């Protein structure tokens, strides 16, 4: 297994800067869920900055039910061979052996993801032990900073995966950025108490307050289905967008994928947003989150 430290050329691998650095290269881009090498090619041709390899997109995980696990290495390998952009893959929350397997295969980023069935209901993976970087989901600042304390090199707001309803993505992005704006106005005495209340390490709360943003890159995820959804999340202040079921559950995946990529680049240019929103065919059908039983929501997984 690869370990952090000096390689044979005296170069440091797996450092925080190296792990966070790849996320910085993905900024302003779209990371797309793909289930086959053909999907991965479509995503790359549309301009995706990375792909997430998984066996079923979240909408299908929802529909099928049962236990959702790490994908078959063979299927991930096929996708890694098909494209030159970075390939991410999902491990279950707390399942550090799935993460070891993904690292040994050479995936570029691991998503410790609530979309899969959690393997541990108390502990997340100790991500400091890995050379490969991790991205983790969050619904608020406390959750984001706990994941960063565990070694996450990138954060994504959770949204509600597999619904095509952007409302939860908006809620979580607003929660994180609103809290960051509030701690920016706090003095040190207040920050100590705030850190305790949101169950996050004080040092990270203080660093975030000083930076005026999370110390790592933060993408939006969970429910983005249209170019307008993607641009909305960008204008709310995220660094980029994950699109899961929204592309390959739509009528014309190639066209929609390209339109969402362009909407993320030109997120503050309404004239271009008009152009890329035209004639995209059918969007994914979607599930209205407000009518969904609490037990069906997956954003509550991971704590």
């Amino acid at each position: 297994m690869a370990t952090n430290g000096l390689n044979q050329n005296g170069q440091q691998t797996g450092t925080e800067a190296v792990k966070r650095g790849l996320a910085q290269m993905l900024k302003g881009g779209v990371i797309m869920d793909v289930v086959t090498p053909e999907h991965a090619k479509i995503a790359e041709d549309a301009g995706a900055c990375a792909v997430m390899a998984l066996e079923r997109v979240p909408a299908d995980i929802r529909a099928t039910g049962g236990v959702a696990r790490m994908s078959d290495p063979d299927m991930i390998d096929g996708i890694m061979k098909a494209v030159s952009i970075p390939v991410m893959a999902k491990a279950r929350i707390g399942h550090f052996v799935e993460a070891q397997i993904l690292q040994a295969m050479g995936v570029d980023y691991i998503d410790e993801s609530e979309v899969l069935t959690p393997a541990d209901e108390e502990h997340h993976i100790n991500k400091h032990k890995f050379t490969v970087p991790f991205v983790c989901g969050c619904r608020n600042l406390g959750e984001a900073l706990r994941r960063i304390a565990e070694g996450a090199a990138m954060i994504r707001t959770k949204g509600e995966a597999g619904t095509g309803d952007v409302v939860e993505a908006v809620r979580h992005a607003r929660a994180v950025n609103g809290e960051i704006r509030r701690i920016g106005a706090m003095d040190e005495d207040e920050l100590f108490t705030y850190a305790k209340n949101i169950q996050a390490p004080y040092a990270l709360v203080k660093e975030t307050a000083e930076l005026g943003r999370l110390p790592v890159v933060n993408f939006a995820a969970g429910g983005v289905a249209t170019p307008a959804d993607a641009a909305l999340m960008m204008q709310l202040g995220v660094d980029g967008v994950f699109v899961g079921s929204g592309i390959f559950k739509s009528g014309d995946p190639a066209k929609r994928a390209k339109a969402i990529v362009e909407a993320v680049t030109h997120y503050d240019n309404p004239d271009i947003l008009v152009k890329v929103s035209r004639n995209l065919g059918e969007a994914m059908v979607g599930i209205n989150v407000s009518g969904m039983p609490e037990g069906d929501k997956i954003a509550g997984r991971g704590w």
Partner: protein
Amino acid sequence: MKIGVLALQGAFLEHEKVLRSLGVTAVEVRLPEHLHDLDGLIIPGGESTTIGKLAVDYGLLEPLRQFATAYPTWGTCAGLIFLAKDIGIDRQPVLGLMDIHVNRNAFGRQVDSFEVDLAVPALGDVPFPALFIRAPVITAVEPGVTVLSRLADGRIVAAQQGHLLATAFHPELTGDPRFHRYFLKMIEKVENLRTSD
């Protein structure tokens, strides 16, 4: 001084931050009209395939080529690939202005990404903290290209050809502004030549 940063995708905000800390105006370039009135351009790191496609689709390829033919332009990582004449078997749109041969993802996947203190004689004796993220490498240079830095194993990771600068690593991420200062000096030199004409 006003420097554009190609802002189609990638780490453009990080470059802007360093430029502003050096007292330079930074402008985000997403469309051809954003290239007007700039003294230089930085093409940042990001996914080179993504940046290439967006440049083609929004009519930026030829305007960028014209700009970089006339004005100082610096490419980091994906930007280096974008400036190069030869990127091997990959068929992706590039500006093709620097006489360098490039191998994309030369070090392997992300688990092979690394940081190292790099000797860059043009920046002085203190080594430069260099971050290589799924980085390319310059496999060969043609006459007219100056090699600015090599790894310990001899592979070329920084080069200059007249007013064009290329680094395989990310000076915008490591808090050392010496490469940005070096680029500003290149711009001043070009502008001095113009005014003395």
